[in-house]
């Protein structure tokens, strides 16, 4: 079980957040929404074991993760194959090229295996980044707004692809998009200055269609709650 409970004191001795309690939905998607600057990314970074600007006081129960950010973080000097297999190279492990090829195929980039990130479109780059995330094969996947820079169609496609390929993993998604949380989240949370608040979420394990009435209902209730949270 991935949990986090505690408070974070910033460098200027302010609380970024206080007495937050988070428990990720095991084997499914937990979506974290909320106004900018409230500390969503900080929570994700704490779970990822990355540096934060401040001192965390409390308890974190986490695991090794694979991480995907808004920027695709593809190394421009490596081609798609090189980027997908980056983790093994950085750990000095043997590279499983066969598995990398399969994952590249699953994200639909087989023809582009030897291309460099500069030669790919934004959507293709995020798919390469997704293949790299899958290559790490960790049970915990932390996503920090990975689809937010994509256009509406590509974003919807990416949500479906990610949901399919990350099936069974414990995923935390930080997002600004209520529609995204409505489609994907088994557990939706809104974070504001007073802490984390549980929100309604879909009850089935499948991803919801963007136009389904349930999606639209969830989306509007999340939007209403978000506007209140920011006020």
């Amino acid at each position, binding site marked *: 079980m991935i949990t986090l409970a505690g408070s974070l004191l910033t460098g200027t001795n302010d609380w970024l957040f206080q007495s937050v309690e988070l428990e990720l939905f095991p084997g499914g998607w937990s979506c974290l929404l909320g106004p900018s600057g409230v500390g969503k990314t900080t929570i994700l970074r704490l779970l990822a074991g990355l540096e934060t600007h401040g001192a965390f006081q409390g308890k974190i129960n986490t695991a090794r993760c694979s*991480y995907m950010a808004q920027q695709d973080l593809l190394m421009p000097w490596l081609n798609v194959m090189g980027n997908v297999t980056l*983790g093994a190279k950085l750990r000095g492990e043997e590279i499983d090229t066969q598995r990398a090829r399969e994952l590249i195929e699953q994200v639909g980039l087989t023809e582009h295996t030897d291309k460099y990130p500069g030669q790919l479109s934004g959507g293709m780059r995020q798919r390469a980044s997704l293949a790299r995330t899958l290559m790490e094969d960790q049970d915990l996947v932390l996503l920090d707004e990975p689809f937010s820079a994509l256009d509406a169609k590509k974003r919807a496609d990416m949500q479906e692809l990610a949901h399919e390929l990350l099936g069974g993993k414990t995923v935390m998604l930080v997002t600004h998009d209520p529609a995204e949380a409505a489609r994907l989240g088994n557990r939706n949370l809104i974070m504001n200055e007073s802490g984390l608040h549980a929100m309604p979420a879909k009850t089935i394990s499948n991803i919801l269609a963007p136009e389904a009435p349930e999606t639209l209902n969830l989306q509007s209730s999340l939007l209403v709650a978000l506007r209140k949270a920011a006020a």
Partner: protein
Amino acid sequence: MNRFIWVLLSFCFAIAAWQALVSLTGVPHFILPAPKQVLDTLIKSRELIAWHAVVTISEVLIGLLLGAFLGALTALHLMVSATSRRLLMPILVFSQAIPVFALAPVLTLWLGYGIWSKVFMAVLITYFPVASNFLDGLRRTDRGYLDLATTMKAGRWQTLLQIRLPAALPSLASGLKLAAVYAPIGAIIGEWVGASDGLGYLMLLANGRAKIDLMFASLFVLASFTVILHSLVSLFANWLTRRAKGETKELLEKA
């Protein structure tokens, strides 16, 4: 092609202006020789100039290679060791306040009149731009890349060699371009202070004997070499940069 024609025109213009100055003022040839006279001297004394040019070119190339190599190595070392960085950075920066000119006499005293005092000058003058540019690049790696490496449980050395280093290649490239321009300056200063060979020595000698045509001919050879060196290093540096940015030829053709 168009650019080449303009370069050619530009040179023709400069030579015409030079010739006009000589013809109109009637200045004696031992003050300012005509372009044709310099060309004649260049052809007539080609063996003499070539010999001295070989010496200078060797000094510059050895100095540039050594300086760039040591500079890059220093940057990698300072990147890895915070203690070294704190200890050595102030000295390195202070050393740049010392004009290399001022060191030339003592280098000649220590290393003699041969090529090594000049090579050392070229090393001194190329070392810092390479080290400081490359170190800057190594330290300015995108935070996101390093975060990714952390979550991938990358080792310290792997992160340095596989992420920081390739990401810093464009910075190394700009350091190398600067070094290519500085290296000949270092060698020539060395030759001025004390030498028995090299273009700097030849120019000083010719000047002293009022052989201004020989002086200009040597200068022309030196400048040509510097331009060629700079172009070659730029080609290499741009290739490094393109490599680091993943820009292949194919992509450039499309652009």
